[in-house]
């Protein structure tokens, strides 16, 4: 393999790795966002003292 081809392959790997890292990091944020939204949807009552179904609150 010529030096130019080898250099091109090295540069391509570096660029791809960088893009991959941004995709992985961005995806982990989207996953965290989805989890947080899920919790908010399942528990829409913000104040537990106002929850009539909570057995600890009489």
């Amino acid at each position: 393999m010529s030096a130019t081809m080898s250099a091109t392959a090295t540069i391509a790997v570096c660029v791809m790795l960088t893009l991959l890292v941004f995709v992985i990091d961005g995806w982990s944020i989207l996953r965290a966002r989805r989890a947080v939204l899920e919790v908010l949807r399942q528990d829409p009552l913000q104040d537990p003292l106002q929850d009539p179904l909570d057995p600890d609150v009489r």
Partner: protein
Amino acid sequence: MQPQFILRLSSPPVFFRVTGKALPWLIGASLLLGAIGLWSGLFVTPTDAQQGEVYRVLYVHVPTAWMSMLLYVVASFYAGLHLVFRTSVSAVMMRAMLPTGAWMTVLALVTGSLWGKPTWGTYWIWDARLTFELLLLFIYLGLIAVASLIDDERKTDQLLSVFTLVGLVNIPLIYFSVVFWNTLHQGASLSMSGGSKMAPIMKATLLVCVLAMWLACAALAMARARWQLVERERDSAWTGSVLA
């Protein structure tokens, strides 16, 4: 920027709203600048007289290496703020910098070693700069572990702030390692004193790549901080508007 506006940003709902508006702009600008930087780095800038084509790795390696250090400095800034003001926003911003900073450190080490093989003849050497950069990765991983292992977020924030500030001592060691010691790693690619010997087009391209990387990292950290903040403040009334 008005000091009052900065103070208002420490309010979680204001932070959530302002960063929500800023994020699309940050992402758009980083994509645009990244595309310009890559195009210029790969197709416009001339071949280096000594290193040949492989020097183009620099357009990825230098921005990631700078970001690995800069994100740590920013995390330390928020750690200091948190120790003084104890706000949720400063805590989540400190925490949000860590994973992206760790990724940037991994990229700096990997792209550096891929460049090192054809240039130095080896992927790795226990050179001062490389060793301190590897130490930075371990510091990032240690802080991420501390942040995720302890359940009580408020207590962890204090501990994490102190540990982050202690680790800050490593940053000048990385940056000045090429000055303090005789190292295989070359000196600074760009310097504030204007001592750089790079061709203007190479320098301009590198600066564009650095700016694109900074905007992308800022966007990632900000996006992570927003959802960490919502999770932490889920019992507050303002989080109800998040679902709207």
